[in-house]
């Protein structure tokens, strides 16, 4: 069983298709949707955790690639620029997974990529443009 967190970017024409249904039904994959957003006239973005056997996962990824869906691993998606962070904590109450956390003794903010689900709530909360989404 392999688990993978990916950001899927759907071209406009694919947005209306039941892609996740096919991943579950045809490729026997377990899908945990972490975040989904479709903007009108634009692309769709889906942040998912996909689990399955190596073979099934590969087949599912090929299916996505055939549909021209862009696949990126989640870890690369959100970048915390430590040199720009002033450790003010404005982002702290907005992070739903404690990916951004605060050591209450040192009052130092840190970022754990593994916990990040790329919800992007921290990006607009940061006054110093220290958190960036890398597409």
């Amino acid at each position, binding site marked *: 069983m392999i688990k993978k967190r990916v950001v899927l970017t759907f071209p406009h024409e694919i947005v209306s298709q039941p892609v996740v249904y096919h991943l579950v039904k045809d490729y026997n994959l377990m899908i945990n949707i972490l975040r989904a957003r479709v903007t009108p006239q634009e692309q769709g973005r889906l942040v998912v955790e996909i689990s399955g056997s190596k073979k099934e996962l590969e087949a599912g990824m090929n299916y996505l690639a055939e549909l021209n869906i862009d696949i990126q691993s989640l870890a690369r998606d959100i970048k915390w620029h430590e040199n720009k962070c*002033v*450790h*003010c*904590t*404005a*982002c*702290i*109450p*907005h992070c739903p997974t404690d990916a951004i956390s*605060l050591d*209450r003794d*040192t*009052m*130092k903010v840190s970022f754990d990529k593994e916990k990040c689900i790329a919800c992007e709530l921290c990006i*607009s*909360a940061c*006054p*110093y*443009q220290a958190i960036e989404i890398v597409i």
Partner: protein
Amino acid sequence: MKTYKEINEKIRKGEAVVVTAEEIIDIVEEKGTKRAAKEVDVVTTGTFAPMCSSGAFINFKNSTPKIRAQKVWLNGVNTYAGLAATDVYLGATELPDEDLLNKVFPGSFKYGGGHVLEDLVAGRHIKLRAISYGTDCYPKREIETVIDIKSVNQAILTNPRNAYQNYNVAINKYSERTIYTYMGILRSKIGNANYCSAGQLSPLLNDPFYKTIGIGTKIFLGGGEGFVYWEGTQHNPSVKRGTNGVVRAPAGTLAVVGDLKQMSPEWLKGTSITGYGVTLTIGIGIPIPILSEDIVKYTAVKDKDIYTQIVDYSKDYPNGVNKSYGEVNYKQLRDGYIEIEGKQVPTGALSSYKKAREIAEILKNKIKKGRFELTKPVKSLSSGE
């Protein structure tokens, strides 16, 4: 009881006992105020937060032929040029003319006056554009040139209101949607609470009646040396106070001034507040001379004894309704959750406690090494006492 003169003599000899506003807490707890006042000479404070009502006077070298600049932009950000031929005031919250503002809500406000100030301090090149109408003595009508911190004659950070003594905790009680305020992003149904003060490290919370901080006090400002030049705008010492004398709402403020050429981008940062605008985040540190037992007692104030008010920014604040949804202290705020109407609400700050601590430490070391002496105010701020 000590005098400024005696303390400065000790500083010059490298013998002064200097501790931060955090360290003094344990010292007073352990030794009592009497002994602490005798043994400690200076307590250093610090704060690092967005501080509106900031900006700089800049005098740039004139062109040939000369211009009496009527309108001046720095990196596209409008300045106030109605001072003289080549003097401008660049305000921290000023935006470029072409900024989208909140047309696509919430606006991101990526660049403005505060960022120009940071770029300037960082030594980066700044595009200057000036226009005028032409006079006999200043015939030039338009210039476009590049300036930097070294090429300008003077750059003087002059902030009419900084270092607020305490501030509101902001919540969104009434709006159905997330709101975007100068106190940050506030989610509906009191989804979070934002505060902005260094609490027990904050300068004016350690000198609640302005007994040592006054006009002429030398301070750490943006990494350089600055001075308090007046009480700040909106200075209001008459708010309610606790039995310890500490204000329980926004109160005193400081007007500060200093040479931008000495400062560092580490302690002056352009700040983008989503949906609101831009400003400047500033590091300020102020030394407090321990002249008496009273003064040491004030500096030993703890986060748990500093209270502030919870204010709604969705309906009350915009409409000038002065209402509190409870009082909380800075220990609760810094621990991460406060209780509002029976609900545990996560807290976030705009003020960096970590940086405030660093500033108090830097100032402590400067004084210990004899590189920063204390000044006696030439006039006190109004104290409301």
